[in-house]
């Protein structure tokens, strides 16, 4: 086997490796960009949330403040908030108890549904 043939083979295998790397990083990127939850599935899973977040002017007691409006909120923020409640990094007994039962998929689905329920732009 002469030197040129070896070099060709090397180039070919390198190309294959690079192509594979490119493809995997591309699909990785697509996966994270499309990781948004399923809002339809979220509609069912969000039913419990509406006990508080579906009541206009509903108030949290001790300390007293309004339960936040979350319909129309950014999904990414809602996901972060639910995960922080689940890990108990963010404190609120009721939210921690509810988030504790959720899988990552549940959190993404619920967040997608709430994010899609905002007011239409005027």
């Amino acid at each position: 086997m002469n030197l040129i043939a070896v070099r060709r083979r090397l180039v070919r295998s390198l190309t294959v490796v690079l192509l594979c790397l490119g493809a995997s990083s591309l699909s990785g990127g697509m996966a994270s960009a499309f990781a948004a939850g399923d809002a339809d599935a979220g509609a069912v899973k969000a039913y419990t949330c509406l006990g508080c977040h579906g009541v206009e002017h509903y108030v949290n007691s001790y300390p007293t403040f309004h339960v936040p409006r979350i319909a129309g909120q950014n999904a990414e923020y809602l996901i972060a908030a639910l995960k922080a409640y689940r890990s108990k990094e963010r404190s609120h007994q009721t939210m921690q108890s509810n988030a504790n039962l959720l899988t990552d998929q549940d959190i993404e689905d619920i967040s997608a549904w709430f994010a899609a329920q905002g007011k239409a732009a005027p």
Partner: protein
Amino acid sequence: MSRFIMTLVQPAFGRSANRFGGYFCRRGVLSGTPTVLAGALAIAVTVFPIAAEASGDAAAGKEKAATCTACHGADGISTAPNFPILAGQYESYLAQALKSYRDGSRQNAIMAGFATALSDEDIADLSAWFASQPGPLQTAPRP
């Protein structure tokens, strides 16, 4: 008055004081208050905290909000999806969030840095400003 009773009760019972305080105020148990007074107290306990928080000056809040707008948008509608939309959020919730960041009970490296510099009045004004802005937030509709 309700605040005053809470102040008395809180050190003795710690975190659960609010719950107990509220209960006793409503029942009029605390000092054997007559029923009418107990009723008045119940109303004070229920209404006063919210009324007290809704006193922010939105115009002053707009002036103070310059720093916030870098992440939360000029009108409280954040451009980056990881930052929450503040426009149209409940004033009392925004104030609660800022106070929690300030006292460290809610942890966020970015928000802690800003919130520690805020006075109660700043928090009230900022909350009033962002709450008064139009945006997509609303109470979730029932499916």
